[in-house]
């Protein structure tokens, strides 16, 4: 559970300048911005473009290409649930439906009250211990439909 500060161009610039000297610095910069602000807002794009001598369109293209980068901060809780084949084979679909119902939040969306972001992820590398999910950065394997889904929903209640 993380509370992110609002986007701050000064702080963003400091982050960008600290990383801009690295080879192929775009992704490290975008990750660092998202870690600081919970997202990479559009306002950050011209700053990155300027520092790396890229066009704003190029930076926009990169930000929007990758599934990880968000345009708005996530909810207070983030659930990333694996939807790939190995988890499907172990009841992942049932679990996903139960968590979705319990949270009242469709997959790949944030609840209107900002309580929880519920996302699909395609493999956490726990393919012999599925269904698997990541809740607020912590991994969980063998999450049983029913009881396991209820625990996820409960953890995201506040």
């Amino acid at each position: 559970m993380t509370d992110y500060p609002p986007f701050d161009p000064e702080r963003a610039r400091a982050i960008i300048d600290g990383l801009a000297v690295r080879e192929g610095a775009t992704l490290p910069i975008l990750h660092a911005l998202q870690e600081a602000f919970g997202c990479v807002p559009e306002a950050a794009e011209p700053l990155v473009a300027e520092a790396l001598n890229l066009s704003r369109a190029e930076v926009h293209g990169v930000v929007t290409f990758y599934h990880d980068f968000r345009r708005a901060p996530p909810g207070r809780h983030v659930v990333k649930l694996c939807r790939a084949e190995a988890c499907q084979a172990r009841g992942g679909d049932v679990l996903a439906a139960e968590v979705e119902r319990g949270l009242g939040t469709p997959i790949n969306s944030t609840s209107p009250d900002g309580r929880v972001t519920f996302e699909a992820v395609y493999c956490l590398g726990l393919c012999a211990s599925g269904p698997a999910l990541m809740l607020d950065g912590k991994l969980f394997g063998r999450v049983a439909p029913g009881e396991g889904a209820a625990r996820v929903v409960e953890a995201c209640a506040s």
Partner: protein
Amino acid sequence: MTVRVFIPGDAGAVAVGADEVAAALAEEAHAAGIDVAITRTGSRGLFPLEPLVEVETAGGRIGYATVYPRDVKALVAAGMLEGGPHEKRIGRPEALPFFARQTRLTFARCGITDPLSLDDYRANGGMKAIARAVSLGPAAIVEEVVASGLRGRGGAGFPTGIKWRTVAATVAPQKYIVCNADEGDSGTFADRMMMEGDPFALIEGMAIAGIATGATRGYVYIRSEYPHAVAAMEKAIAIARRAGLLGRGIAGSAYDFDMEVRVGAGAYVCGEETALLDSLEGRRGIVRAKPPLPAISGLFGKPTVINNVLSLAAIPFILAEGAKVYADFGMGRSRGTMPIQLAGNVKNGGLFETAFGITLGELVDDVGGGTESGRPVRAVQVGGPLGAYFPRELFDTPFDYESFAARDGLIGHGGIVVFDDTVDMAKQARFAMEFCAIESCGKCTPCRIGSTRGVETLDKVIAGRDVERNLAIVEDLCHTLKFGSLCALGGFTPYPVMSALTHFPDDFRRNRAREAAE
């Protein structure tokens, strides 16, 4: 006397409570006045045993399986710290058939040593290879790798030594070693286990690749879904650098090599080597047309060795023990061992490293023990989301590159996902198209648009509308994807779709009768 205890810190163990078990055990031992030293190892790789706690005794390491925090008090009281009897005691883990049947060359240390201890690494055969590599010199290293028969373990199966030879022969002021650790295939976790469980082996392999080809910089591109692997590699690189194994004059030689970790951002297609290079350069992960080969014009236009984690991690064994020892394992043109990953609905899920040639049926039924649900195995998907579904009738297929290709499949990165008889193969075929639509980089039209049309058409089939005509369209689409895409995402998505259609035709025709009745 201090009791040594080993608890995996591997993500697969942590996800089922290993951290809490380690904390509970430290507390319980303290309360009982027993001095314990807990080492967090990688995982041995049989995940149903996790969290697996091992206690060092005069008779070797004794394992206790599926130890949860609530069990710790009773286990300590029962004498676990002396290796005492308990229903969770499994004896020496390496004596279990799952481990005893393996040939662990690449994963020899994983689950046994402290992943971040260089002393452990050295004491268990580590750093022998780089010493030999330095004495052999670049040309002889390359020939050793060629002679080992090692082929790309990421899935494409291209001979690693040939790749290295090309980079070595290309003159440039800067060359790169890039490790592809963007292990996005569902059903695979060997790269993750290696990076978390024996990161120095990968570092040593990359440094040897650097010496062999004249590359002085390396990158490990790890997917963001693997935070534990990222942390382990970063720590290991820092330790290796402090010990002089990376940087200027590595391991006391005249060769320079340094490396760093780069983290992906949730794009499956970046596991494709040219898309990965674009991503490393800071761009959208768009697939490049070949030629030029990355070996000639790769990262930032420079000659680049791009190899999978498992290929690079196999290098220390090959250099330390000699190419012949490695090549003596395997069959046909598939030499050495493959770390196979048994996943999905399988009883004994985990990492099984073995020489090429074992049959799919032995893997699924004997080693894997069938399904975890106890129901019959109906299908197994081999090689990730782009791999074919195999029915039981094809379980006699030997596990090697050519045998799988001959049956319209691929071994890919060695993942086997097992499904029981509740699986709906039409749904799985639809998922393959859906996944392709979500992850397509957009460069090739058949992949970008064909995948979405594939989902729509399969939806019609599943709904029972005009089934035969729509299946003909799906087949036609698959043909277009296969031959009209630059990379394996578009090119191989037809494998799961067509194999499902070929081997499980009834699943696509369930609603046809209903339609006729209406």
